[in-house]
């Protein structure tokens, strides 16, 4: 199974185009839908953790999933699996194709891919919304965070940290209210 996991990570590493968020649909398809290594809610959770921690997003995701599957060994397999195709491809390009980026075919290929990559990033927005704990009390949270990041340039990390602290404090508030009620019940 570790080998299969390694190959899936290779595939994801090899097809990550235009930054980490673009591979969310690929990861979701492979890890959640196809192999059921984690469920959708867990996927969203770990996505947020990987976004908050430093390092390369795709590598962080794969490390966690690998760790969940097979401990530290699995984590290493995941991290190396994501990085390996890049290391090989770039080394080969650096050795033999110094003028790779000026190649007209490469340029045209990527002109076609770029709008698709933006679509790939936008698409999970709606699917993940179902697992995102949205209801009439929380629906404003994604809208406000989107506008803060997009229009005011606020770092997504700050948004995630604030939301985490908010969730924690709200939980404490709920508990306190709950225990107060229990005390009153006992009386």
């Amino acid at each position, binding site marked *: 199974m570790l080998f299969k996991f390694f190959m899936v990570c290779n595939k994801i590493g090899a097809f990550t185009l235009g930054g*980490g968020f673009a591979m969310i649909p690929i990861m979701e398809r492979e890890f959640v839908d196809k192999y059921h290594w984690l469920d959708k809610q867990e996927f969203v959770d770990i996505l947020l953790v990987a976004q908050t921690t430093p390092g390369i997003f795709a590598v962080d995701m794969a490390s966690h999933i690998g760790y*969940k599957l097979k401990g530290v060994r699995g984590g290493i397999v995941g991290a190396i699996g994501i990085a390996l195709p890049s290391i090989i491809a*770039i080394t080969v390009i650096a050795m033999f194709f110094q003028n790779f980026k000026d190649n007209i075919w490469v340029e045209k290929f*990527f002109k076609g891919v770029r709008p698709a990559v933006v*679509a790939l990033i936008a698409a999970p927005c709606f699917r993940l919304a179902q697992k995102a704990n949205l209801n009439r009390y929380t629906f404003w949270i994604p809208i406000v965070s989107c506008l803060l990041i997009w229009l005011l340039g606020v770092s997504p990390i700050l948004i995630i940290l604030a939301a985490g602290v908010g969730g924690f404090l709200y939980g404490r508030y709920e508990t306190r209210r709950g225990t107060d009620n229990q005390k009153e019940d006992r009386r």
Partner: protein
Amino acid sequence: MNIFLKLFITFSKIGIFNFGGGYAMLSLIQNEAVVKNGWLTNAEFADIVAISQSTPGPIGINAATYVGYTSVMNEGYSQGLAVVGAVLASLSVIWLPFILMIAISRYIMSHKDSKAIKDVFRGLRPTIVGLIGAAALLLMTSENFGSPAENPYLFALSIAIFFASFYLTGFRKANPILVMLVCGVLGIIFY
């Protein structure tokens, strides 16, 4: 100091201080590799940016591999040692965040049922939709789509590719890798 040791220290630092994704990492790498250490010229760095973006794989790893290779070559070592530099730089970027991530995973998994962790995630989850939405909006630029003033035909083609890919991957569960490859081929044919 030995170039390999320097690469290791520099890229370990870049890895652990990178909070902003691939593009933020590029500016960290530029600062370390061009400004501070003078391993590369600015023109070489511009090449690296272009290559990292026009090659699959996480941008941070791509750039680290390329800088590792080029800087060892520029110091006058052989191609074989340059490959060692490429691998070393890439692994240096990964290892510290990796340890941190494993520590966090371990903590989350052993405290999965704790109320505090559950509360934190309950607060986090609604933000994901906003985060992804903002990432997509920030990428809707003329760099990715062209502009109607410059070339209306190509702009229309980009928009068509966007909506078709959005529909296919978002609602039809099409294979994203296949969609990207087809769009690349369309690019070769029509642009």
